């Protein structure tokens, strides 16, 4: 293994962790996935083509491992506790609500089909182009495009539903 390969791997770890977090919905499982991806990459350095994007290659490895695990073991992200609907009434509320909104986004993402989740993480979060994301997912660009559209619409619908439910509860509590 060349030192540069290891350096590249370390450099991409934060983004790889973020990608894995989006896929698995769990920090610990995401790190397991990243570790597995690193280990697999190190055994396949010869497969990496110089001149191509190293990050995309690592994303592909991570996604492949994750999909393989989903298929072979039927692992499903544990449904996290439904986010509570209790909201305080004092000053920290705004901060808590902001953080809550982000929790809801993560939860909503976790409800999407795996391939849509991956597409969102690659394009919307990591900023890959459709072509690059298609290369990672090993599907046509058109497939990425439709997955993204379905995912974004579904995510939006889930967020609106959660927001509506929370507002209703808050209103009920306020009465």
């Amino acid at each position: 293994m060349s030192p540069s390969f290891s350096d590249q791997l370390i450099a991409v770890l934060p983004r790889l962790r973020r990608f894995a977090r989006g896929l698995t919905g769990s920090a610990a499982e995401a790190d397991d996935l990243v570790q597995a991806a690193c280990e697999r990459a190190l055994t396949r350095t010869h497969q990496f083509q110089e001149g191509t994007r190293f990050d995309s290659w690592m994303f592909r490895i991570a996604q492949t491992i994750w999909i393989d695990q989903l298929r072979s073991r039927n692992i499903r992200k544990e449904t996290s506790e439904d986010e509570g609907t209790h909201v305080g009434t004092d000053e920290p509320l705004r901060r808590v609500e902001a953080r809550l909104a982000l929790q809801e986004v993560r939860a909503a993402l976790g409800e999407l089909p795996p391939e849509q989740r991956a597409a969102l993480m690659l394009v919307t979060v990591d900023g890959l182009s459709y072509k690059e994301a298609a290369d990672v997912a090993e599907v046509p660009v058109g497939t990425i495009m439709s997955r993204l559209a379905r995912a974004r619409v579904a995510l939006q619908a889930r967020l609106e539903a959660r927001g509506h439910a929370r507002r209703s509860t808050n209103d009920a509590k306020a009465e």
Partner: protein
Amino acid sequence: MRKPSDEILVAYLDGELDPGVRLEVEACIDSDAETRERVTALALGARLLRSAFDPVLHEAVPERLIAAARGEGAAAVTDLAAARKKRLGWLGGKPLVEWAAAAGIAGLLIGGGIGYFSADQNTANPQTASLASANWLDSIAGYHKLFVSAGADDLALVDMPATDGAGARKVVQKLPSDFRLPNLQPWGLQFQGARYLFIEGEPGTQLFYTTDNKALGPLTVVVAATNKPDLAPTFDRRDKLNVLYWRHHGHAYVLVGTADIGYLWNISNDIAYQLDAI
């Protein structure tokens, strides 16, 4: 142009449209309020999604991942399910008779925990010290240390293990009806078990969480009844442990761990929301 499809709108937001199509979409956005609203909502969702995951980029990368990237990893993670089971499984399989023994040990430690740290190790600030009567914080911190040091070899300090979902449910059943077990999985913290205790004559529960995120480390969460007035979150130290303590509407809350105060603060916000504790 007809109203653009969701695919076209999303591609527009992602900068993936040809210039001609993009101009048509922009014209439609300018002229049609519904399309404009749709694009705005989709853009907001994308921004929220990025905001939800960008903090991961600023987290410390666990040493095991850096080691793995360098090819220095110990055991390869080839099976994610097995890795997860291993991570969670060290508390499992304890016979009931051992729990009986554990309860006895715990009973001794409730008394012995007071003064677990020597006085010069405590740096409780006056506010916390006066409100917490100092000693029970020492006891909680002491239990936390014992729990951590017991590690995979012993779980004698836990009255109720969380070896499975039923364990967690039983913990909740023994708690006040309005209590919800904090779900700290988004932090990578796995609930391992609970012990029951009395703090200043009021019942409480000490919840133990573990993680393999070394930057965070094992965490104790205590929720107890109290008849004292509300108190804003207050930081404190016990030996090498950080303590975050607050009271809200008849409940006292304590976080104990080696995590830095930023972590504790953010986790306390999470717990405060989940338990309606702000």
